[in-house]
């Protein structure tokens, strides 16, 4: 009894609640727990999952990035257009990563160095970058010339598609960075108290620039995979991604006030979002009711987590 309580109320409580929910869903929703559906589910959260890795750092350090959706679209476009133009896929991929990182870097410089509000800055770059993607492509989807590009998304390793592997690798990598490196700890410290961190010798400005640049780079990865999955660069792709990603993070216990983040939580947050969608479709819930159900699931998830942690007697 007591050890059950400990597990439920511990740091990993959210994970446990999630696991319980998962078991219930598996039992009661037909077709849910099949290999095919699981892989489909995981593929559907690749974009959100990948971007959430760095958004976690961004939020942990008390920042905010609304431009991720645009960067994903823009770098996906870049990957396709440059691949087509040069005839070389690696060059295209490099270009996409570079584009993503540059936009992120610019975000970081404006926010950290010129001290402009992150919400406004990334809202601005969100529009600018989307505009650039539309201008570059004249608003049209750009097809991929070399079919080898599709292989990025279609290829499999041990029956699991490459994008899922990439997402898993990023989960592990960024989990490690968050918990076991100076970078991760500094990000959390900045979020906890930026001034105290600065006085403790953390180069707050550089850290923030790095985090945004990294976020951009990772959006580049997500953009490439997305382009490969939908076999074209689409300037309208990934609109509204920012809210989904931020929600997944917050759902996973990342504090918008900074200073609190855990990779396991974020993964759970991402999965909850994906499973909600998946199960509703499996259960054939009508489109309009899906809105309502999605909202309710969000609420219930945080409510449960809240009950759990207030039972544990922590202070807000």
């Amino acid at each position: 009894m007591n050890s059950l309580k400990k597990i439920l109320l511990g740091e990993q409580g959210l994970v446990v609640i999630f696991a319980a929910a998962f078991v219930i869903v598996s039992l009661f929703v037909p077709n849910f727990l099949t290999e095919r559906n699981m892989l489909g589910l995981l593929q559907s959260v690749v974009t959100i999952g990948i971007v959430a890795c760095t958004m976690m750092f961004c939020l942990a350090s008390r920042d905010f990035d609304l431009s991720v959706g645009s960067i994903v679209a823009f770098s996906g476009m870049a990957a396709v257009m440059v691949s087509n133009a040069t005839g070389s896929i690696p060059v295209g991929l490099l270009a996409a990563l570079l584009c993503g990182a540059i936009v992120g870097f610019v975000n970081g410089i404006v926010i950290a160095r010129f001290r402009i509000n992150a919400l406004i800055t990334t809202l601005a770059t969100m529009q600018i970058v989307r505009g650039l993607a539309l201008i570059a492509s004249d608003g049209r989807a750009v097809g991929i010339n070399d079919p080898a590009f599709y292989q990025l998304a279609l290829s499999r390793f041990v029956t699991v598609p490459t994008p899922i592997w990439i997402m898993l690798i990023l989960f592990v990598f960024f989990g490690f960075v968050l918990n076991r490196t100076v970078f991760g700890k500094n990000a959390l410290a900045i979020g906890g108290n930026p001034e105290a961190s600065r006085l403790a010798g953390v180069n707050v400005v550089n850290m923030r620039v790095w985090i945004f640049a990294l976020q951009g780079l990772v959006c580049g990865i997500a953009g490439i995979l997305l382009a490969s999955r939908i076999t074209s660069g689409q300037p309208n792709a990934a609109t509204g991604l920012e809210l989904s990603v931020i929600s997944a993070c917050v759902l996973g216990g990342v504090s918008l006030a900074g200073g609190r983040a855990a990779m396991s939580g974020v993964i759970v947050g991402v999965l909850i979002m994906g499973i909600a969608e998946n199960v509703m479709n499996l259960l054939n819930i009508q489109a309009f009711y899906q809105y309502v159900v999605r909202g309710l699931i969000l609420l219930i998830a945080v409510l449960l987590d809240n009950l759990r942690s207030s039972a544990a007697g922590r202070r807000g």
Partner: protein
Amino acid sequence: MAFLEFKHISKGYPGVQALADVSFSVEKGAVHGLMGENGAGKSTLIRVLSGDQAADAGSILIDGEEQRYGSVRDAFHAGVIVIHQELQLVPELTVAENLWLGRFPAKGGVINGKTLIETVRSKLEEIGIDVDPSAKVSSLSIGARQMVEIAKAVMLDARVIALDEPTSSLSSRESEILFSLIEKLKAKGAVILYVSHRLDEIFRLCDSLTVLRDGKLAAHHPEIAGTTREQIISEMVGREISDIWGWRARPLGEMRLEAKDLSGPRLRNPISFSVRRGEILGFFGLIGAGRSEMARLLYGADARDQGQVRIDGAAVLPDDPKAAIDAGMVLCPEDRKSDGIVQGRSIEENIAISSRRHFSPFGILNPKKEAALADEFIARLRVRTPSRKQDIINLSGGNQQKVILGRWLSEQGVKVLVIDEPTRGIDVGAKSEIYDILYELAAGGMAIVVISSELPEVMGISDRIVVMCQGRVAADVARPNFDERSILTAALPDKNAAGTIQHQEHGR
């Protein structure tokens, strides 16, 4: 007759029994001291009294009546006012608005702006606090903010007033104003619960005294007369401390730190001074004298207008605290809440934040080493906590201060240590431990700058004292010439301006 009574109060937090069956009572019109080591449960008791936290068990009686309040508001209506240990002001509101917060003078919800300002102005004048009621609190220094907090208690006619370490950020001048206010309140018949780590104040002000230890009642003295310092100290810490200062002469070496013509936007007059290897230089002054400002310029925390800092002859660039740390200088800041603790993170992380770079190859952490470091300083500084994983925000104020000290004492290769108000809120037992560490570091060749508003402390531990007054160096006194009166005189601006609290932009 007992006016305020605590009966069997208990309060636990996960892993900590903050209060265990505490019972005592206080007479009407008495000032009652509350003492105990850091984490002994003083603030918790006061939070229970204020209605902020509910006790797990026990009851509070005022004037024989059992109090059952569920909120701060209820406590306020019962005539209880509490000044908490951490400043509780809203920086974006004005002084007057802060003083009226929770009970604005209003008709139909519309605030009477004139009443608001004028009542505060006259009240502040009456009690001798010179702060502009329409100034934003964010523009005041910590000291001035503390005075505003205190004005809160005096503004309202309360039956019970609790003050949790009110003087920890006041210098003697401002403390005097507070003491006279306490006398007035006492004369009106209020009960005053007074928490402090300063024995002088306790003996001077209090009629009776309670000592807490590990959340339990360690001693209750209905009459303070007849008790001795030594007795109280041993009741608090459970052992004797003969000489808390413990200063011994040390050989001084080469010039280590040289500061030349430092000035900044808030410290217009250039300041120069230097410290030798092995030397402890004390900075004394009244609130707003400019000591903290000097320290921040020295460290590169604020931008300098001009001036150079050299360590062992090499110039330290002022672009960032990081540059200072790399050059071997560290600053333990004055305001632990805004500049010291990293909320939401553990004690361990708060200690290792700076020093971990010495043992994190390629930026990868060494958790064992961090844990060992944390354990070492938790033990040496007697941090009261269930675990090194505890979120620092859950520690008592003094214990937080110890952790921040631990952060800087654990740094390696430090040549210059600047500590602003090192023992603010720290208990007697830990104080002497901290002094011993400072002596040890100095003996190892470090140059140490200690800024303190506590004259006995500055005099007790410094090899030399620089007195600052209104942003200038007013005196530079060597240990053999230490003399309380002359140092105080040097710190005073001039007769007319005495007691003036300067406004300053802090805006953090």
